[in-house]
């Protein structure tokens, strides 16, 4: 029975980013503490500090009454704090049992007593899984259980769970809830991080909401309304964009989707996109928003259904989509967006079919124009994208598609992890492109952005479009409730 108290925890990164500025949190035995916050609110930083992956720049952590410090995952484990991440770091080729025993000492690989101990532990958790199956062959829900068992086997008294249900299907979620309740009943302290307000309402005893690195709400769950949580998450508006007073009238239909689907990831979706229209897709990670963009772009080989551009079907490979004029700015700019060893000018010219010979001069002129138009802060067109800040690298990825050949622009989280100045630049650009007649589909976790610049909003959850919201009349809280399932669908429409 251990109580963990975080007092005034702050974290400032060397580059000046303030991730946390004085957060208090109490994890008490037998209680499930829910932690919420929008992207960038500081949740991940707080979890990393608890896990020992980051050291706080100020504040203390008390275990019962003693002040404890740790600066490595091993130290956190020794203090009885176990963290279970959304993407579970297990060795896929070892059996579940061996993964659980990975940090045990000794020299013998197979020990009957260890096996019996783990088997008893697994039985007590109530969600049995085969101990000898390689983890890579287990379904994702069972892997989650392996991670939880691993945490408990190493003697954890405090269990931190970072969005454990984000990648799970409904019945698997129910099992995780059940296990969390058992943990609490046994006297463990649980910190449960989630985007889903309905989960938080159903599962937790108390709730903390972070915003901009501060605690903005801390209360017993029993006395809270979902709307109050959503309002605390949303807070003030940071976007310097104002919706125009008059609604814009979109032009002729450009892009049409007919039952576009991807098995296991996206339910059949049909929609029509008109010239000059910005269509927003609101949803949490794993809700099918990126999957829909990839299916349109032909980047998902398993996708089915028809994509029509001006009534003509588009091929089902990215090169055909690009040739037809569909452009995708992917979610992860470093992994999917740019080639790190090519210069800005070369990256920007990459998708353009410029014939056989390179025209370095034309590429440089185009790159200089893009650098000026997007206000990219770079030493020059010869710089490498990895040398730029996140916002500027993102602008480079967008600049790849600012050619007249682009007929439809798909943007996947274009403002994730970038500073507010670059964010505003990018949103202004999107709006002005749309005003010039380019249809845009915009995915963002920043719902205020969607509300500010979209003409139409679709809400996704669990791989399907579950409703439509009117951006002129909806609030951020409405969207949080719809995507997080805390309100009846359509309430905000």
């Amino acid at each position, binding site marked *: 029975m251990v109580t963990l108290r975080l007092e005034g925890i702050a974290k400032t*990164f060397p*580059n000046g*980013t303030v*991730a946390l500025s004085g957060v208090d949190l109490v994890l008490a035995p037998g209680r499930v503490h829910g932690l919420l*916050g929008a*992207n*960038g*609110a*500081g*949740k*991940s*930083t*707080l979890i*990393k500090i608890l896990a020992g992956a980051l050291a706080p720049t100020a504040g203390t952590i008390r275990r019962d009454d003693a002040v404890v410090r740790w600066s490595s995952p091993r130290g956190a484990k020794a203090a009885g704090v176990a963290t279970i991440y959304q993407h579970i770091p297990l060795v896929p080729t070892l059996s579940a049992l061996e993964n659980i025993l990975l940090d045990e000492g000794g020299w013998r690989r197979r020990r009957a007593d260890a096996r019996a101990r783990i088997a008893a532990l697994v039985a007590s958790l109530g969600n049995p899984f085969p101990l000898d199956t390689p983890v890579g062959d287990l379904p994702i829900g069972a892997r989650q259980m392996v991670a939880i068992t691993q945490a408990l086997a190493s003697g954890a008294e405090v269990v931190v769970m970072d969005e454990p249900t984000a990648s799970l299907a409904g019945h698997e979620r129910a099992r995780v809830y059940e296990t969390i309740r058992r943990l609490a009943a046994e006297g463990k302290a649980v910190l449960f991080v989630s985007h889903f307000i309905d989960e938080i309402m159903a599962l937790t005893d108390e709730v903390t909401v*972070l915003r901009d690195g501060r605690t903005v709400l801390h209360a017993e769950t029993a006395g809270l309304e979902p709307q109050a949580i959503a309002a605390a998450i949303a807070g003030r508006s940071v976007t310097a964009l104002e919706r125009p007073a008059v609604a814009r009238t979109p032009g002729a239909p450009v892009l049409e989707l007919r039952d576009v689907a991807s098995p296991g990831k996206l339910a059949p979706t049909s929609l029509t996109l008109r010239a000059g229209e910005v269509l927003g897709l609101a949803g949490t990670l794993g809700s099918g928003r990126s999957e829909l963009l990839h299916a349109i*772009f032909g*980047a998902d080989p398993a996708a089915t259904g028809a994509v029509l551009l001006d009534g003509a079907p588009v091929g089902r*490979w*990215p*090169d055909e*989509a*690009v*040739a037809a004029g569909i452009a*995708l700015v*992917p979610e*992860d700019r*470093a*992994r*999917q*967006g*740019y*080639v*790190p*060893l*090519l210069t800005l000018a*070369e990256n920007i*010219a*990459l*998708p353009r*079919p*410029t*014939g*056989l*010979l*390179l025209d370095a001069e034309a590429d440089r002129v185009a790159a200089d124009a893009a650098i000026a138009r997007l206000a990219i802060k770079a030493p*020059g067109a*010869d710089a490498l994208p*990895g*040398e*730029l*800040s*996140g916002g500027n*690298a993102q602008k480079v990825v967008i600049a*790849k598609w600012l050619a007249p050949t682009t007929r439809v622009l798909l943007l996947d989280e274009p403002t*994730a*992890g*970038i500073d507010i100045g670059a964010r505003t630049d990018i949103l202004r650009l999107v709006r002005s492109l749309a005003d010039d007649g380019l249809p845009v589909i915009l995915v963002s976790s920043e719902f205020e952005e969607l509300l500010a610049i979209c003409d139409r909003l679709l809400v996704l959850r669990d791989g399907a479009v579950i409703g439509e919201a009117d951006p002129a009349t909806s609030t951020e809280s409405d969207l949080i409730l719809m995507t997080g399932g805390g309100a009846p669908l359509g309430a905000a429409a």
Partner: protein
Amino acid sequence: MTDWRRIFSLREAGVYYALLLLLGVLAALAAARGLPLYLSGQNLGNIAYQASLVGIMGVAMTVMLITGAFDLSVASVAALAAAVLVGLAGQIGFVPAAFAALAVAATIGLINGAIVQFVGINAFIVTLGTLTAVRGLVLILTDGRSLMVEQPQVLAQMLAFESTRVPLFWPLLALGAALVVLGLAKRRPFVAVGGAVLGALALVAGAGFNVAAPVVYLAGFTALLWFVLGFTVIGRRLYAVGGNPEAARLSGINVHAYRLGAFVLSSVAAGFAGVLFGCRLGAINPTALQGTELTVIAAAILGGTSLFGGAGSVVKTVVGALLLFTLTNGFNILNLGANYQGLIEGIVVVAAAAIYTLGAERRRARPAASEPTPVEVAA
């Protein structure tokens, strides 16, 4: 703005320095021992001739490595092409037999590439398999014995294709001058320095300087790929495919086609090297060229090509091949004891890789305000 210090750094230009240093040391040693002039046109031409087959395969291997794949089967494919050439030339004539050999090689490249790209097996494993299987095919075709071309006039044709001497003094001088002018005009210092070195080489070698035909084939092939990589959209896309395949795919580049093309190119180059090898003697021994694939890869690594894809230069690979064969040549001429040769070559390759890796780390450490990783900002 031209970054001179970077362009002439050990990491960027180390292989050139190493070759010049080695030539200087060997020349000094030869002079000290009272041997004939080491830096003679004839000896330099010999080194280039000995390096030509590995160079041709190495240049194609560089393109392969740039796309992020790997080909271990080149030496076996070259031996197969030589066997096909020698086996068929007597019946259908030299030129048709040479084309048949290239077609067989291209087919194996296509098989390699298709298995890697469409079945999804690692290139190392696939080409390790074809390395063994194709060598087995050579043994089957030759029935384990040496083959040779019996018809004298076909044989003469083949020898002519391989061992014609090409006078190079004036072309080399002209090319050197042209490169100097081009390099100065375009502010590409390396091109200018390279031109000056070529011109100096021609003057050192003397007006009677000539080389065997394979050296000219190597130069032509290298120039072609240097042009394609540096000045065409295909080249840029090859670098993109290796540098970040997912970004390339999402930019609308057909990654499969580029990788497949690299496999075919590698095998065709190996086939051409095999044709040259077959022409050299008009005969083929079933174990010919065994182990050469490792020399080819060593040349590319000496030239600074990354095994992770996205970076590499065909010219530097050729210099890497020249470096390896200069070592061999030096050991022979100076009679330094062939037993030490393998040890020294191995050390040179690892030292080169160490220089490239350490240089890359220092370069990576320099930009201080790098991207705030999503880990830090997104919560």
